């Protein structure tokens, strides 16, 4: 009967484990002889299953909100461009960029859509055309005509909203997505490789760190059940990281050249430390299911 309840709850919460990816079988770091995450008869297992499902739904809601905001920001951007208000258009473009950063890593599975939304000029295929947010960025910051590029965004943004609405990520997948987001901050945003025209990578730094923190918040409850000490440690490093990023100043007003080298270094090292801890937590959540699959 207990097993039936577990299964029913798991299904009701929309929590599904992908058939392809099996639990990694990672040995819990605590070394406990009895692992409640794998004992289906345990009351803890039931609670974990519920918590895992809640994490999935929380994150799905967060992403839904982000994609909806992204679509809205693109609409506002279109209006500003059509009205010739470059100042407003720049603000709207930066806002849209920040929203995109929230679900950037999830677009990895939607390569075509991603290329229409956030492709860098250096990533355009030999026979392709430069489009998306960075094309609009180029237009707005180097006095080009943004109308055509924004029109393309207006078509593709709802596609992303639809594609991502189908995702149901397990807690482990949410964690690894956040880890990837942090890695992107160090590899791309902090070195100033993203905003090549506006040079306002602080927008991406803040948005991406915030997105990773938000993802952690979604899995924090289940993390506290599986490994409270590690989860507390992750929360602490995130707090330090957010403080570091906050010291950059208002992101839309901090050009790349104005970020002190020492602060850039400090943020980078803090990001790496946070990502390392978060990766460990994600591994601890693997027995609850890995990766995820779009719901049919």
């Amino acid at each position: 009967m207990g097993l039936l309840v577990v299964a029913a709850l798991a299904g009701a919460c929309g929590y599904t484990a992908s058939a392809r990816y099996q639990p990694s079988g990672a040995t819990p770091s605590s070394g406990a002889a009895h692992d409640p995450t794998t004992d289906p008869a345990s009351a803890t297992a039931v609670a974990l299953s519920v918590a895992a499902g809640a994490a999935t739904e929380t994150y799905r809601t967060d992403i839904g909100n982000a994609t909806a905001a992204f679509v809205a920001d693109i609409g506002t951007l279109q209006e500003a461009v059509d009205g010739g208000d470059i100042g407003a258009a720049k603000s709207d473009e930066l806002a849209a960029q920040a929203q995109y950063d929230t679900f950037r890593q999830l677009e990895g599975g939607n390569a075509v859509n991603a290329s229409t939304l956030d492709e860098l000029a250096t990533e355009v295929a030999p026979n392709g055309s430069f489009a998306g947010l960075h094309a609009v960025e180029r237009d707005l910051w180097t006095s080009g005509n943004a109308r055509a590029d924004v029109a393309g965004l207006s078509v593709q943004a709802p596609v992303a909203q639809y594609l991502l609405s189908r995702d149901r990520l397990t807690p482990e997948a949410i964690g690894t997505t956040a880890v990837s987001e942090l890695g992107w901050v160090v590899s791309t945003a902090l070195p100033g490789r993203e905003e090549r025209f506006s040079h306002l990578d602080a927008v991406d730094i803040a948005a991406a760190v915030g997105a990773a923190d938000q993802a952690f918040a979604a899995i924090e409850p289940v993390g506290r059940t599986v490994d409270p000490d590690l989860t507390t440690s992750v929360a602490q490093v995130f707090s330090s990281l957010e403080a570091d990023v906050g010291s950059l100043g208002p992101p839309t007003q901090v050009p790349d050249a104005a970020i002190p080298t020492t602060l850039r270094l400090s943020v980078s090292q803090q990001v790496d430390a946070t990502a390392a801890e978060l990766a460990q937590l994600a591994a601890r959540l693997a027995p609850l299911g890995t990766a995820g699959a779009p719901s049919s």
Partner: protein
Amino acid sequence: MKRNRAEPGAAPPVDPPRSGALSRRQLLARSGLASAALLATAGAVPAGADASGTSPGDLIPISFSGPHQAGIATPEQDRMVFAAYDVTAGDVSGLAALLAAWTDAAARMTAGQALTGPGGPFAPPADTGEALDLPPSRLTITVGFGPTLFDDRFGLRPSRPEALVDLPSFAVDDLGPARTGGDLCVQACADDAQVAFHAVRNLTRLALGSATVRYVQLGFGRTASPGAGQQTPRNLLGFRDGTDNLVAGDEGAMQRFVWVDRDSDQPWMVGGTYLVARRIRVHLEAWDRSTLGDQQETIGRVKASGAPLGGSRESDPVDLQALGPDGLPLIPDGAHIRQAAPSTNDGEAILRRGYSFADGVDPASGELDAGLFFICFQKDPRQQFIPIQQRLSDQDALSEYVVHTGSGIFACPPGTQDAQGLGHGLV
């Protein structure tokens, strides 16, 4: 261009001792104990040589002379020093003189000999000296000519091969100008880092007034196995690197994929090849926190054994069609070995001969500045490296972890033989 030297195959000439005492390198050369046959018979380190830490192979020099330059098909050594130069000579005669000096010096150094000069206490030593007590260590010196050499300075524009194109930009690029390009390059490889460095250092000295150093890159830990019988080494990702590399001993493959043949638009390049060098920085911190499963799916191999996913041994053929019980490919679509496979690239292949590097810490991020100094040789980069790299940049899962911070393409002329020097037929 001709130069004075002994006939190929003869024992290399020996410089006279400065103070009456013979260095170990001189002793070895005079006694003929560097001959492979004698070493194979004796099976022991020759008298007078330092037996500690010296393998017999290190005592055998690799001839600088031959139809092809050494350091391409040569079984890969353990250390590399790569240097790019900007030529400052005023005219083509200055360039020719530089190449002649380099030819002579390279022949001596690869033979385990010190460079010679006026000598005496009132002149700077002709040889910097740090390799005097060291065996040849399988030193090879390979020289290449960059596209910029063929501008209007030396009248070489008509001699620029069509295949020596400017590399296009790739999505993974973040190229630093200081680590990109160059009129000339030198690849010095040896089993002893000091011997390799000595070679580049002395060539650089000889170039004073004719060329300036653009950049130098040190490498360690060979990441390819172009020699049959060599165990596949591991790169800094922890994976075996070079499993499906071209085998340099496969002459048919070398003729097909590496050596420029008589179809070349430039006769002086026949017997040569094209070198592409890429400084590939790896975000090791991000890699190290990815799961073993992710790492293996990114590469397409089992980390411990090197077996392709779905296989059991490193030597198992890579089956890109194999499916798992779920009906999905065992080797994921974005896996590195799938995207780099010749079958995915119209049958094209390249000879890889790279090295790992570790250059301290990136001051901007505090992360390790380390990765792969990727070197490859091919007959035509337009058909080989460029389309392969384009595919990798766009579709390789490994691209998430790497950024290319330096780049260069060079035409490596054929080897020196019959008393001809580097660049014969060109200058």
